[in-house]
């Protein structure tokens, strides 16, 4: 059994998130990014070697709780994750009580930063940044007057959709609400309601498979509205599954894309990632890489105990491949950006920050 | 004919199933303390009478009275609590329970300790439990199968199963016992023993209402016999009178000599 507390031995970092099961893809993306960081680090000479241990939660809150306890038991020095907001709610209190720093690359629920957890950080903005950002983009850049906002009744999807709804009203757009069941097949009730409302934009708070279903059924029912969704839908799969119907879909994320960047540091990351994993970095890979590197930097600076690492991370000012990273007192990024991508010709195209993003006209 | 002492009464009962009239305006009175037999051709409506009494069906018209109270419209377990028990035309025991347990299920109909009482093991419950066991054994003794008390019901021989069914019915402490063709599938020696048992039951004060095709048994035990034909009562008299009634001979017996 590994006992990696305090000094001596190789410090162990824990990865917590879904690596198997139906929600595994995002978890794997993050893990791959983090693993790359650690391998690159360990390949250098004269550094403290670090191990990365996997704790597979399957995205399940109750498994996350027992896995978190295992992390505590194993005395790992810091956690990359937990990945999802749901599992964070059961795992985070345990990690926090055990005084183990945990840095999430992907959990966006607003409430997580409001529990007063001293050991919590995340390297991306929460739903309160994404939602209003999306709304502003829809109302201002797209100039939409009426918007149909749909949630998938999941914690993430509803949170995002509600934030969008709220801001859209402030922005003066007419908002109609709907819900879909992400596991269901037939969204016709919702599609019929959209059709009747004839909105300029349809926004979905949800994940890519539901998004693919929804756009397909919308387009089949000759709904012409622009389709916008959040980071949950930002995956090449929305294009693969949605087919032609997905073209023109706008997808936001507080994560930036490493693919096609002109920044040399990002290009280096992309190259290394492709070399190691044989595929382009995907959603949250860059964030995973950054979290790994932040923690490694703490260790390289001689911070070996969980407590010290946490203190170091809290005050870090780091230029990541995804974005500049600096935390405020609640563990949130002190400044954050929202980015937009679009499905163009069956491929995801990164458009840049919402402030400057210009959708490619369909056709 | 209908004495005031009738324990069970059917008052102009009609039972229809869709187009089939199984019983039409039947009056019957089963005198308290007697062995009363109901006979008649196949499909005459005999089993229907039992199903009406036990609350399986509700009469299309007319009413049923037991001990002066109306019972038509009651649910089966309520009828059981009033004091009517039955056996089935084809044996229906709780196959995988022991003989004693089968009887105890019957005895439980007379118990009222609550589920909570049972869960907490209250004294009342324990007393009833003991009482049920004792009474069960007495009844097994009455029908003569104490030796198989611990055997599972389905392992018993047919005759013993019949007896067990009767014991289980008696355990509910009925005032009236309904027997539907108890002698079916028995050989003459067994029928003889059955006759003895039926009389023993009557002698402990239980009124017996019997449906039977075996005229030997009917003639041997009954105090009174009613005959149904096509849902109508065509006779209601002493066994000897019924046996020689020409209408009964024509509809049912075929020839007087067939009364075996």
């Amino acid at each position: 059994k590994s006992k990696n507390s305090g000094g001596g031995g190789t410090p162990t970092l824990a990865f917590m998130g879904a690596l198997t099961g139906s929600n595994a893809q995002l978890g794997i993306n993050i893990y791959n990014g983090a693993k790359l960081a650690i391998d690159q680090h360990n390949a250098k000479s004269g550094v403290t070697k670090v191990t990365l241990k996997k704790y597979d939660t399957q995205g399940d809150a109750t498994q996350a709780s027992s896995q978190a306890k295992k992390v505590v038991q194993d005395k790992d020095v810091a956690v990359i994750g937990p990945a999802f907001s749901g599992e964070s709610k059961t795992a985070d209190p345990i990690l926090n009580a055990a005084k183990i720093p945990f840095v999430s690359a992907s959990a966006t629920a607003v409430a997580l930063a409001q529990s007063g957890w001293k050991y919590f950080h995340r390297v991306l903005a929460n739903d309160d940044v994404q939602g209003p950002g999306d709304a502003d983009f829809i109302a201002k850049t797209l100039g939409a007057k009426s918007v149909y906002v749909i949630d998938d009744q999941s914690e993430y999807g509803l949170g995002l959709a509600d934030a969008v709804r709220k801001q859209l009203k402030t922005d003066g757009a007419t908002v109609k609400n709907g819900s879909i069941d992400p596991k269901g097949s037939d969204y016709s009730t919702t599609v019929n309601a959209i059709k009747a409302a004839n909105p300029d934009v349809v926004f979905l708070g949800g994940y890519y498979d539901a998004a693919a279903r929804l756009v397909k059924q919308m387009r089949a029912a000759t709904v012409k509205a622009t389709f916008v969704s959040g980071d949950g839908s930002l995956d090449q799969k929305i294009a693969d599954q949605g087919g032609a119907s997905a073209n023109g879909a706008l997808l936001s994320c507080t994560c930036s894309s490493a693919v096609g960047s002109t920044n040399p540091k990002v290009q280096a990351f992309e190259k290394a990632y492709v070399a190691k994993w044989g595929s382009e970095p995907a959603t949250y890979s860059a964030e995973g890489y950054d979290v790994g590197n932040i923690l490694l930097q703490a260790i390289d600076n001689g911070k070996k105990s969980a407590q010290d690492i946490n203190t170091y991370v809290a005050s870090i000012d780091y230029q990541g491949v995804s974005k500049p990273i600096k935390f405020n007192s609640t563990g949130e990024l002190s400044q954050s950006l929202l980015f937009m991508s679009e499905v163009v010709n069956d491929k995801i195209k990164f458009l840049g920050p919402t402030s400057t993003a210009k959708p490619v006209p369909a056709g | 004919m209908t004495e005031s002492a009738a324990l069970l009464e059917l008052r102009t009962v009609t039972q229809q199933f869709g187009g089939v009239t199984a019983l039409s305006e039947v009056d019957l009175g089963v005198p308290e303390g007697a062995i009363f037999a109901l006979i008649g051709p196949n499909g005459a409506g005999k089993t229907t009478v039992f199903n009406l009494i036990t609350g399986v069906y509700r009469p299309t018209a007319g009413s049923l009275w037991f001990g002066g109270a109306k019972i038509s419209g009651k649910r089966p377990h309520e009828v059981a609590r009033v004091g009517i028990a039955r056996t089935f035309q084809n044996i229906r025991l709780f196959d995988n329970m022991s003989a004693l347990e089968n009887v105890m299920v019957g005895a439980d109909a007379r118990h009222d300790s609550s589920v909570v009482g049972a869960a907490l093991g209250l004294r009342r419950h324990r007393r009833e439990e003991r009482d049920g066991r004792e009474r069960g054994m007495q009844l097994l003794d009455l029908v003569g199968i104490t030796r198989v008390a611990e055997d599972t019901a389905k392992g018993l021989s047919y005759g013993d199963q019949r007896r067990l069914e009767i014991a289980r019915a008696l355990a509910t402490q009925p005032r009236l016992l309904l027997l539907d063709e108890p002698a079916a599938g028995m050989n003459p020696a067994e029928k003889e023993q059955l006759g003895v048992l039926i009389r023993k039951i009557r002698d402990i004060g239980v009124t017996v209402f019997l449906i039977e095709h075996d005229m030997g048994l009917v003639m041997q035990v009954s105090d009174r016999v009613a005959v149904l034909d096509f849902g109508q009562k065509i006779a209601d008299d002493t066994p000897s009178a019924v046996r020689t009634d020409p209408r009964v001979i024509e509809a049912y017996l075929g020839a007087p000599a067939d009364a075996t």
Partner: protein
Amino acid sequence: MLLEIADLQVHYGKIEAIKGLSLQVDEGEIVTLIGSNGAGKTTTLKTISGLRRPTAGSIVFDGQDITKLAGHRRVQLGLCQAPEGRGIFPGMTVLENLEMGAYIRGKPPAADLDRAFSLFPRLAERRRQQGGTLSGGEQQMLAIGRALMAHPKLLLLDEPSMGLAPLIVTQIFAILREINNSGTTILLVEQNASSALQLSDRAYLLETGRVVMSGAAHDLLYEPAVRDAYLGAAPQPEERTDTS
């Protein structure tokens, strides 16, 4: 020899219900099995028609060893049984039940149906009634009528008189005689032993899974041991007029 059973053993779990039973039925005969309850009569019939597997012994029908043959194939060979408990298809009408009797032959000719209806006029009246709602006796009629629809070489009947009114019992035995005269061999199980023995050519007496006596039906009828246990003394109904 139409049916020959040798050293048959049948188990229900650990219980040995048939303990080495042998019997024969010749073409054209009526053979009766009598015996007290639980002697194994029904089990024997079920084993012949393939509803139960024997643990040992052999069954040869019409020159063919059918011990391991599936039940439905035996029907095709000409074995048909009207089972104990009647086995009426409760959700089928009387007519459909009769048609099931001729299942192996496809659609039965109208003449067969007419014969069944003329044997049991009650069935004709009720031809559209659901089998499950017939009275006990009506079901018994239907079961026999249905078995005849298959035109079996060997008809197995398990207590055909059970639950029937005396008048019908007499009719049933007459019908069996008639069926037999028209060429169908019959293996009959009956509690109503005296009527059955009067009807049959030969008989076997079963006790606890074994044949304890066999011979010409006529001889058994007058065998004292049989008389006592299975035929009952001549009926002497006590006439009870007192209403106590």
